[in-house]
């Protein structure tokens, strides 16, 4: 299968040339890396490359979306496979709403401001969610019509869980 990785917004081809235990040879965007990679603890990697040691902590919000912490930097990496390419091709511009509203983290629904079938204006807040005593308002970008409200006030929700869908 052919893969790309999207690093901080830029797509690059990636291919594993060889691997033997933790010694791996990888081709990334035309450059070959010969490295010794070890997952020491869950999500915590030590990578030795040309004698240098790099430590990475991996966080995933979705199966293919990684946020990697190095010492003082945070790097966003997305794995791009056939499926994601297909999904992307179907997606419109960035300033369009997704098919549903979700939150990036778990929380509790404080207030739902719309009803099913309701027409909402771009920029309007549709739901307020609280996590750890902080409330966040979630808005639509363009005018939309509410299809379904999947949660109710007081519900505990997961991150990336669909809350309100649109037509």
């Amino acid at each position: 299968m052919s893969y790309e990785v999207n690093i901080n917004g830029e797509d690059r081809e990636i291919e594993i040339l060889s691997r033997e235990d933790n010694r791996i040879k990888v081709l990334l965007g035309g450059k070959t890396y010969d490295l010794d990679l070890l997952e020491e603890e869950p999500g915590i990697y030590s990578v030795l490359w040309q004698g240098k040691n790099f430590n990475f902590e991996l966080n995933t919000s979705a199966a293919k979306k990684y946020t990697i912490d190095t010492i003082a930097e945070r790097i966003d990496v997305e794995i791009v496979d056939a499926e994601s390419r297909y999904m992307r091709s179907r997606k419109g511009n960035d300033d369009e709403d997704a098919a549903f509203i979700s939150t990036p983290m778990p929380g509790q629904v404080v207030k739902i401001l719309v009803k099913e079938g309701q027409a909402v204006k771009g920029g309007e807040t549709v739901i307020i969610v609280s996590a750890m005593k902080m409330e966040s308002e979630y808005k639509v970008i363009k005018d939309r019509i509410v299809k379904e409200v999947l949660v109710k006030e007081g519900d505990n929700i997961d991150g990336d869980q669909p809350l309100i869908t649109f037509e």
Partner: protein
Amino acid sequence: MIKKILIANRGEIAIRVMNSCHEMGIQSVAVYSEADRNSLHVRYADEAYFIGPAPSNQSYLDIEKIIEVAKKSDADAIHPGYGFLSENAGFSERCKEEGIIFIGPDAYAINTMGDKITARKTMLAAGVPVVPGTTEPIVDLDEAVKTIMEIGLPVMVKASAGGGGKGMRLVEKEEDILSSVQAAKSEALAAFGNDAVYIEKYINSPHHIEFQILADQHGNCIHLFERECSVQRRHQKVVEETPSPIMTPEVREDMGRHAVAAAKAVNYAGAGTIEFITDDDLNYYFLEMNTRLQVEHPITEQVVGVDLVREQINIANGEKLHYRQEDLSQHGHAIEVRVYAEDTDNNFMPNPGKINYIHFPLGAGIRHDSYVYSGYDIPIYYDPMISKLVVWGNSREEAIGRMKRALESYKISGVKTSIPFLSRIMDVADFKNGHYTTHFIPNHEDALKSKDSCPEECVDLAAITAFIDFLKKQEQIKSVSNGQASVSQWKAFGRKKAVTRL
């Protein structure tokens, strides 16, 4: 003598209190909500009782339930920690009525210090400097202008009934006085239906410096020197240190004396903190008193060598203070950072969730007060602070180097935390030099953003690592769905490996 203490709190502070109990041979009783059965404070306690649903108002803030557990478990005393019921005068009073020792001050001290106006008046009467300003609301325009001229510019005009920045005006130039006061008054009227304002001296380069005090029930009171807490975001302290880099021995002595006077003015007993706002020239003014243990109390413990919780318990036992002022001195330098589960690049949005793995920094000069562990799911109901990392160093420079080292070896996977952000603070020249005010974080917004510390190859390696992790997980899913135990070819390393190789 107290033999058993109920800790009416959760998280790191509950564990902090239990540790001292344990060291003193006192039994500890935990209470926990539905979200906290797997919380570490339950495991650290000798006894633990369920007190209700996850939301605080149905559990940790429920006075009846807590009193009930205290009676059931035969606890002699209750330690409230910070937050929750710690500054609740009614709870202090209720404990007294029930014959349970409240480890904290009495209702009078909490009430007096809890009300800003009363506290201000009490401090003025005790000779403690307060921010120059009016003590009574002003309705008359001319009187407001006259008062401003007396206090001297710059001043802050604030709505008496106000809050949240509404009806608030900073006046820096004489020609703006009239228009600003008028604007503040009409805004206040519109917002709160009351156009009374009060006027306060505006501190230009404010430092938040606080003094730790200890007072016994016999009228003795000492201070344990200052903590510098100016690194803040949205009035939330982020980094604290002691000694303050701007302090002088003379001002320290003065402030300490005033801190003791402040505590004595309310017949304080227990551990408490007097917060001062201080300008670049070390003019200082009473801001408020926190009538409880502070989050940042550990830096004082590291530098002064006194266990504050132990002393709280001794005081609650009716003992006289174990230290005289002249016994105490500051030894070395301590810094604390607060580690939050949050996305510092995204407006400090909380980021609760499951901690995949946590690796704490170890070694010389490191103190870590925490309550999370690998596999722990941070509940969404409570504070996103997951730990306090404290370092001690022989000098401020050594302490900063140590903090940087500690933050760089502190590994958490699974949730985003403020660790990289805190590490960047240690690199900012103004922090290193000790030249900072409460405006530090907004003033250095760019320097504190995630930046390219990682050269190109490092970014590539990070991406490769993510890719490999992705492949590993796919393999695992496959092998599980094929009904095999997941013996990944990626997981070969270990003893077994050495066995086959040699």
